[in-house]
């Protein structure tokens, strides 16, 4: 009897939790299909009637809010920083894990101290420097900043490389392989899950970041989706909902496909931190 009560109680809680997490998402999704754009025409939480008009408007009515352009900008920035950032991060993590050199410990300590500075401080400085040199309003500038800072978060990846046994390396070395060959032909293929994780995180960060684009992109046509959606008028709720659903969808799908990698990545970062 007691056990049954306990089970019922547990499920009750679970339903509440699921509701709490799911309801805002459902609200947003339904709002994106609403017929009228303004939030004032809703009945409580949900729209009175549904249609696909908002999505149609989102992609065709580009005079004020050029969503397709924003979307392409975001895609460009996110893919660029994903490729470059993953490359740099994996290289850094691998060297930090495998090589013993004099500057290793000081470098690890330096990155730790640098991580303590509020990220904003650097951004204000980047903003000031960029305005000083007239480098504002360039998408590639964003890519460089995202990718350039990416190696700072190498610890999770280093933790992964630490778990690949060194015996394999030694064996290859005896067979006459150079360090470059060991990296390219042995460790890189083994690190595939970690590369996927790194690529995912370095893609989603620029995809959903708003501070840096807001600082550095002042022209409406260069906006990323995050900045663009922020600039929407308050009456454009349905458009906001549609734009959000459209940009959140790919990320959500990616997360669900790679949830195993994500969990492993988080856990590793935690233990080895």
């Amino acid at each position, binding site marked *: 009897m007691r056990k049954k009560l306990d089970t019922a109680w547990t499920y009750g809680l679970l339903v509440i939790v699921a509701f709490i997490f799911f309801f805002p998402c459902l*609200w947003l999704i339904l709002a994106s299909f609403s017929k009228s754009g303004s939030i004032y025409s809703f009945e409580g939480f949900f729209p009175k009637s549904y249609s696909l008009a908002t999505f149609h408007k989102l992609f065709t009515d580009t005079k004020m809010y050029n969503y397709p352009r924003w979307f392409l900008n975001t895609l460009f920035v996110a893919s660029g920083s994903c490729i470059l950032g993953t490359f740099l991060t994996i290289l850094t993590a691998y060297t930090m894990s495998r090589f013993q050199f004099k500057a290793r410990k000081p470098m690890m300590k330096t990155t730790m101290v640098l991580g303590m500075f*509020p990220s904003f*401080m650097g951004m204000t400085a980047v903003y000031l420097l960029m305005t000083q040199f007239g480098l504002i309003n360039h998408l590639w500038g964003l890519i460089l900043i995202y990718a350039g800072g*990416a190696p700072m978060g190498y610890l999770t990846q280093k933790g992964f490389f630490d778990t690949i046994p060194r015996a394999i390396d030694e064996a290859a070395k005896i067979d006459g392989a150079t360090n470059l060959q060991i990296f390219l032909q042995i460790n890189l293929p083994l690190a595939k899950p970690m590369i996927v994780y790194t690529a995912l995180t370095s893609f989603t960060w620029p995809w*959903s970041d708003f501070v840096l684009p807001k600082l550095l992109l002042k022209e409406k046509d260069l906006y990323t989706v995050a900045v663009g959606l922020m600039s929407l008028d308050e009456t454009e709720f349905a458009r906001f909902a549609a734009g*959000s659903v459209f940009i959140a969808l790919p990320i*959500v799908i990616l*997360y669900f496909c790679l949830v195993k990698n994500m969990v492993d990545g988080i856990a590793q970062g935690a233990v080895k931190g």
Partner: protein
Amino acid sequence: MKSKWKQWKNFIQGSTGAVKLSMLVMGAGHIRYGAVTKGLIYLLMEVSMIVYFVTRGLSDIAGFFTLGTQKADAWSGVEGDNSIVMLIMGIFAWIVVAAFLYFYIQNVRGAYACQKRSQKGLPQIGVKQELASLLDQKFYVLVLALPVVGVCIFNILPIIFMILIAFTNYGGKIVPPELVDWVGLDNFKKLLVLSKFAPTFGKILSWNLLWAVLSTALNYFAGLGLALLLNKECVRGKAFWRAFPILAYAIPGFITLLAFKFMFSYGGPINQLIVSHGGTAFGFLDLDAKWSARIIGLLVNCWISVPSIMLLATGHLSNRDVTLYEAAKMDGAGRWKQFWKLTMPYMIFATTPVLLGQFIGNFNNFGIFYFLRGGLYMDGYFLASDTDLLINWLYNLSIDNNYYSIGAAISLIIFLITSTISLIVYVKSPSYREEDTFQ
């Protein structure tokens, strides 16, 4: 220290004239002992360094200290000094000097090594061999070069720039073409004493600390509780239940925040419900809504952060030592006792670094109140509102209102607070002291 001194003594006594000459003319030692190419490279370095110094280096370093002496004057057509460019070029000159010093020392060391090799009758290492070693023994140099350059330009340089700015009067009316000056600790004094900044600073700092503690504790226990709930034996279809928090986790933060802002706005669904049930609309996030806005902030932050903590805790919970729990059950320990005596110590041990990261992340949580309330300025606050954290104030001051130097000083204070807390946790926490208690 003593051995260094001894090395130096040996070097002075043991080195030949050519090696000593390379302290004056870089590369001399290398050329004398047959490593001609390397010697010439060092010589070229010295020459270009001298050229750089004569043409710009010296004036750049002087400019670093003066930050400009000639104010621009459009009437008489005088092109004045741009203090900020001078500051940046000054930093750049210092970096060049540091790099040069490094190569200078390498040059003397290398020359001495060349001498030793030739005395032993060994052949010198050529440039080709050195380059080949980049692919093998010195692979790390090749690989790290690019990331290090990137981090230096996009992380370290901006941080150095901002630290220096904190000690100038840059900002407000004093932006180029006006001349900026070094002012020492004035900005910090202003923050702590001046009636314009000090009250705001005190209020924001205390709310910021309260916020960081509350939100971290709330997120952590809610996440842990959720993980324990999902981990219960009686729960079937765990993947299904877990999907809901993961959905919340996957949605970009700014979307969540903007959506919640709409939800709690005047015309939002919650107020519509209140009105339709005969109430009056309530400004949850309004100017005078101090605590309701703060509590909504806490809860929304919880909604965003709990899923990641749950995922993490789930991973750790599956690593627990089950036999401990069985033993505890046999000894008659109840569920609460098991939780407090076994689960909590283990979890805290395993997640201290994450907890610390969470705390610092929350301390510097820019997004929450920027999106929920965004840019409200209140009476009794200088360019801030009662929900703003230091980081929001920093943004208002330096990006929206050009108070660059005050903003930089606040950044440094944030850095001091977070690094002190981290250091204390780092030294005191069991996961650093007793690494193998639980493993």
